């Protein structure tokens, strides 16, 4: 069967999220290139319901990992009540290992994010947008605060934006280092000044979010797509990339490749094409494994990526997920046991401690894998690990336990020989 990319003519693709413009992060350059024109159009010409309808028509799916249709999420907001404020949270926590696209987007094009938040604010009649940025990105917070202050000075944000009667604030919130804050309900707890323990859903954020008010949470890249969709039209957006998961996508490529970094291409790129773009494997080595979308998604063996494209449908068929499109390429010398040990350590460190299956399970997972990595494991430990995964999945408030279990389950399943070789033999040879 012929291998087909869903990205169309990607070689002549013109970047839109990070267009090749010098100093685009500065407000005057951004405005010279048509910045905030979409906001003007939305505020003066469009009705809120048209904004949401246009977002729905574009088939944009969230870029934060879960891939939920954005327009549908926006339409979940309840009808406006005059005395109840409504909020937007922009999830800029980005702590998924292997993901670094949003940091680059915020550095090079912060105004598209501000414009996207304001457009969303008009579509859903919001009072304010809280930008939750992880504490490690201190330099980028300063950078964004500077640009945001410029936008406030130019009357683009705040009271009577662009001379209209619309008001909306953008507030930057600095986190302090917790992976769990990337989960939407725990992000809201953190914003409210509490320990970031995830909440039980329902009620969903659209009914009861921050300070019990209706809230929508979107990823940075998702919000950055909103001005493009409303400026150029939903049809234009839907025509880019894979049919069921269209649009521009930031691929964060890392690992043993010659040119790692963030690349913007349409969705639905062939994995093999992306590897070629990133300069191929370092030192001419062979590919062993690929993590296509951050730590939580199942790892793919090199023989499983043939003909697979980077979109939700294709990766699901291949046995993995798109996640955040933070791709980690690993070469033939990679020790998968050491990899899994590090992943387990990560989840053990980052489990918030609210639910027992996750708090205890991630710890035992790390202990078992450490034992195997140290050469003291038994073959039965592998099955014990798989059983542990069963005990964790779906038994906790949030999805962190599932996210910890999937890589363990799939790495053992797909690289079982590597693990068995490190374990003590189950049957000892009889010395005749």
């Amino acid at each position, binding site marked *: 069967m012929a291998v087909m990319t869903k990205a169309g003519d990607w070689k002549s693709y013109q*970047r839109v999220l*990070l267009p*090749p*413009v*010098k*100093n*685009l*992060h500065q407000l005057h350059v951004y405005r010279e290139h048509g910045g905030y024109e979409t906001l003007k159009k939305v505020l003066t010409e469009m009705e809120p319901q048209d904004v949401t309808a246009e977002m729905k028509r574009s088939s944009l799916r969230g870029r934060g990992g879960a891939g939920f249709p954005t327009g549908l999420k926006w339409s979940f907001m309840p009808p406006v009540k005059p005395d109840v*404020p409504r909020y937007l949270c922009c999830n800029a926590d*980005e*702590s*998924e*290992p*292997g*993901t*670094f696209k949003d*940091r*680059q987007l915020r*550095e*090079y094009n912060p105004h598209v994010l501000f414009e996207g938040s304001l457009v969303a604010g008009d579509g859903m009649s919001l009072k304010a947008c809280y930008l939750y940025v992880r*504490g*490690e*990105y*201190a*330099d980028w917070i300063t950078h964004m605060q500077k640009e945001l202050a410029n936008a406030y000075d130019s009357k683009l944000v705040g009271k009577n934006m662009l001379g209209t009667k619309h008001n909306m*604030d953008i*507030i930057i*919130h*600095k*986190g*302090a*280092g917790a*992976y769990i804050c990337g989960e939407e309900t725990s992000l809201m707890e953190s914003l*409210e*000044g*509490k*320990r970031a323990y995830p909440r039980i859903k329902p009620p969903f954020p659209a009914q009861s979010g921050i300070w019990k008010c209706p809230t929508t949470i979107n990823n940075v890249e998702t919000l950055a797509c909103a001005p493009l969709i409303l400026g150029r039209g939903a049809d234009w957006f839907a025509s880019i990339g894979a049919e069921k998961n269209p649009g521009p996508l930031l691929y*964060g490529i*890392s690992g*043993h490749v010659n*040119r*790692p*970094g*963030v*690349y*913007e291409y349409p969705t639905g790129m062939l994995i093999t094409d992306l590897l070629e773009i990133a300069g191929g494997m*370092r030192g001419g080595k062979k590919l062993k494994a690929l993590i296509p979308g951050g*730590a939580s998604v199942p790892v793919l063996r090199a023989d499983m990526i043939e003909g697979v494209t980077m979109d939700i449908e294709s990766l699901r068929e291949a046995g993995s997920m798109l996640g955040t499109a933070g791709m*980690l390429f*690993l070469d033939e*010398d*990679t020790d998968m046991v*050491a*990899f899994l040990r*590090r992943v387990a350590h*990560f989840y053990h*460190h980052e489990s*918030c401690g609210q639910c027992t299956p996750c708090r205890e399970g991630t710890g035992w997972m*790390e*202990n078992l894998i450490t034992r195997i990595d140290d050469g003291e494991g038994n073959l039965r430990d592998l099955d014990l690990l798989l059983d542990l995964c069963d005990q964790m999945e779906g038994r906790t408030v949030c999805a962190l336990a599932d996210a910890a279990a999937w890589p363990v389950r799939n790495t053992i399943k797909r690289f079982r020989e590597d693990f068995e070789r490190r374990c003590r033999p189950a049957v000892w040879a009889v010395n005749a």
Partner: protein
Amino acid sequence: MAEFIRNPVVELPDPNPEAHFSEEDLVFTEDEKSRITDWVNQYPTSDGAVMWTLWLAQEKFGFLPPEVLQLVATELSLPYAQVYGVATFYTQYYKEKKGQIVFDVCTCFSCQFCGGYDILAYLEEKLDVKRGHTSACGRYTLQEVECLGACGSAPMMQVDNGPYMHNLTPEKIDTVLASLEAGQSLPFVSITLPQDEDEMGGNRRTDADAEERYLTPPRPRQTQ
């Protein structure tokens, strides 16, 4: 956890800890108070401002012992328990005294397989301090941290919760240490996108130091 099973003792915090700061030190200046008021005004309740205020307190005092947490709680009219809960939940708030300069070396898997552990070992040797500890002179603290979101420029580290140091090599660490010893502050480094390198001949920002090198050094050992 294995340690806990061997020795199942829970150490409760000291109910009457010795104070690190005197009462005269434990005040916010008028300028700091106005910053706190600005933060409080950004949220419907003063609870929201607790994270920003803890950052301010950490900047001012270096770390967050109980008396500083009490100061924050009083300033925001919150219960002490809530501020304590927040401060102990997040890893970037320091509960005990750290060195003057803190190195956070990323060893999460992208960095792990590009030599993050070698960078950590090199720093251990160079600073004569074990990971997770502060050097005897009290100048440096070395920590192993989870993904810092710069996987494309692995291995990397963060200095003092501030600037990122990308594409580390032993030589680069020597340069960083030398400039820190000379009392210089480290610049913000902007990583060039590979596509910008092709289409624009380099970094798009002209107001930041740009890092245009993409090739991280050949990978050394892979196990921990």
